[in-house]
């Protein structure tokens, strides 16, 4: 098959998603911007009026900002891990979903750390972290880890963009503004898809795959250590780093499945994102939910059985004040996805997506139950009369900023897939070439 012809065909197939801004899309972007504007207003209030307008107080000094931070970085870690693995092994169906995962990885890693900034009392002194760094502090480790991870993921994302930038640059009939064409030309970096260039880029992508797996592993372990290196009951647990890794993978796979489902339905890409994708990722989610449930159980079981007074106080808080949250996060959030995914007949796109939604919500709540109840149950009991100092309740400001994070994720995602094809065109071509090769050379089938 003629490569140039096939390229033109594919560009024509994907060009509507790049060229047109339908009314529905405009409304969607409008809604997202509206949410973000509310968030900006909330942020303005928080800066001018101080952190008093959040629900955080002296005992619960970390609230849903930190929970969102863990959550988003967890998704990013998971994305880095999975896309790293996909690129390292030449799996034939990886192409259809690799870009979705890569964009998710970078975006959540950009948005996650913003939540930490929201939690900091003196944003104006942020540069003190670099002026007076203390390498002994786990926060410094976390900054180093996340920044390295971010750079690594950006490079990785960009490398996977290059071939498609070249395709779009060479597409004469693509109806986009001039500046966008210039950007394509610039970002394509002189890529001409010569065999040598192709080989180089594959090599680069593959070595970056290993690197971002390691980076993400480190970044997320360090994040778990921020909690587990303190001596607080409920945090000071040796299994926290691996537990966070499993939990991160669990939520990340959940978000990937949700994104896959939405993109498949909205852009009608059933031809590319097939049932097999949901079937396979359903099995991955099943394994992860069992692992996650196992880790959660081990952690709480040891606390309950060994009966140390501080642990028991924590469990009392959990079961007295957070009973339903605990049930939802650690029972429903695990058992329901397991039941759905255990049966082959439920492993349809819709079935797997429902399981994914439950697991993602359950996991967010699980993070809440890790952060807040521990802070509400210190070693020396809280003796106070002000309800907001006894129990944490997030205020509208915190919720507004949380939804802003989600909205920003969706907005950036939408804009990015208006800029590059959501499924790598070059990848499709390469897969087809390989398929042709294996037909003409039967030996390759073995």
């Amino acid at each position: 098959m003629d490569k140039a012809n096939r390229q033109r065909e594919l560009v024509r197939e994907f060009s509507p998603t790049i060229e047109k801004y339908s009314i529905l899309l405009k409304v969607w972007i409008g809604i997202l911007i509206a949410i973000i504007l509310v968030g900006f207003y909330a942020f303005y209030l928080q800066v001018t009026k101080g952190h008093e307008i959040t629900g955080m107080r002296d005992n619960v000094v970390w609230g849903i900002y930190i929970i969102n931070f863990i959550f988003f970085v967890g998704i990013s870690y998971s994305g880095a891990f999975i896309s790293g693995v996909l690129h390292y092994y030449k799996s034939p169906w990886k192409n259809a979903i690799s870009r979705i995962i890569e964009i998710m990885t970078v975006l959540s890693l950009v948005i996650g750390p913003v939540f930490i900034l929201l939690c900091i009392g003196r944003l104006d002194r942020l540069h003190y972290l670099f002026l007076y760094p203390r390498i002994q502090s786990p926060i410094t480790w976390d900054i180093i880890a996340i920044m390295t991870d971010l750079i690594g993921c950006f490079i990785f994302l960009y490398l996977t963009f290059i071939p498609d930038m070249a395709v779009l640059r060479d597409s004469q009939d693509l109806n986009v503004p001039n500046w966008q064409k210039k950007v394509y030309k610039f970002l394509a970096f002189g890529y001409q898809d010569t065999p040598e260039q192709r080989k180089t880029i594959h090599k680069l992508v593959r070595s970056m795959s290993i690197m971002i797996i390691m980076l993400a592993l480190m970044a997320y372990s360090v994040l778990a250590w921020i909690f587990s290196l303190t001596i607080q009951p409920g945090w000071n647990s040796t299994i926290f780093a691996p537990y966070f890794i499993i939990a991160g993978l669990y939520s990340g796979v959940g978000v990937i499945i949700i994104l896959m489902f939405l993109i498949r339905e909205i852009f009608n890409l059933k031809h590319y994102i097939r049932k097999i994708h949901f079937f396979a990722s359903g099995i991955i989610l099943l394994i992860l939910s069992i692992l996650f449930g196992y880790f959660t159980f081990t952690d709480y079981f040891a606390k309950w059985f060994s009966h140390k007074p501080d642990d028991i106080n924590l469990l009392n808080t959990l079961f007295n004040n957070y009973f339903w949250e605990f049930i939802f996060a650690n029972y429903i959030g695990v058992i329901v996805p397991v039941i759905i995914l255990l049966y082959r007949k439920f492993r349809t796109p819709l079935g797997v997506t429902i399981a994914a939604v439950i697991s993602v919500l359950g996991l967010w709540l699980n993070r809440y139950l890790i952060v807040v109840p521990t802070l509400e149950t210190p070693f020396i009991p809280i003796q106070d009369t002000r309800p907001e100092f006894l129990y944490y309740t997030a205020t509208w400001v915190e919720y507004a900023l949380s939804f802003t994070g989600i909205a920003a994720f969706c907005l950036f995602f939408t804009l990015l897939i208006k800029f590059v094809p959501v499924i790598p065109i070059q990848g499709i071509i390469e897969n087809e070439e390989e398929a042709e090769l294996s037909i003409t050379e039967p030996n390759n089938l073995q």
Partner: protein
Amino acid sequence: MEEKNKSSRRKFLKLGLISGATALAGNTIINNLISDQDGSGVKIKVLTPDGQMVEVDAEHLNKYPEAHITPEESRKGIPNRKFVMVIDLARCNNARVCVEACQKAHNLDYHQEFMKIQLIQDHKQANPYWFPKPCFHCDEPSCVKVCPTGATFKRDDNIVLVDTTRCIGCKFCITSCPYSARIFNWGHREVYDRKDVKYSPETSVPGTEGTVLKCDFCPDMLRQGELPHCVRSCPMGVLYFGDILEDLVTNGEETVQFSKLINERGGYRYLERLGAEPNVYYLPPVEKQFPLEGGLDKEDEIIERYKNVPYIQELKKQGKI
């Protein structure tokens, strides 16, 4: 006997703490004083920060302690001192005078407490007791370990301070302190705009929005040869303060040997098992001098704080409060 104790106590304070104060006052101040020709003519030898002996006029000594200690100078600590506090739980009756004196000295609000008075009931059979809780100024301070900018630091004289000009407000120290000693400045207060005092980590005044604050053991008072505000104000003599190197502590009334006090009266450190190595010691609440109920003669808000203590619940059930 008691008289003798008192006089020896005064000597300890004057000689001991003044030499420390001068040593920390900073070179500039000492130089100024040396060039200053007016004075009583009586010279006194003092140590400079770099360990040199300098002679200064005795009359100027009193000006020293009030000198402003910059955040940089406050990191060093008073030389040859290891401050320690002993709290006699048998004497505390929740008078809250220490709390109020501390709040006044540090420009704190009604609810901002460096010194907290908890009501602790160790187990169901135990009688509850009043438990004054300052910062423990640990030797293994979890708060200092985790600080990303070095805004909180441990000094050679055992004191852990917070430099609110350095603090970025990440609150990691608050989450890692096992004794809940730290509080946060959630919003702006008018007293933070005070222009008449220059900020020093040794006084913690004026406060800064968005930063962490806690009990500082009042190094500004120590430099003047005075006891911390809480110790000075306590009417029951609950709080003893002193120096582990001199093996002496005082509550302002009597001066006692620290090691003897701890060993004879079964002194202990709270939650020793956590390994934080606190510098605040407790004497157990045995043979209490006041009935617990005395401390309940307070406004409703104070009593309401202790509503979760089984003993208080029992009293409420009986209709006694």
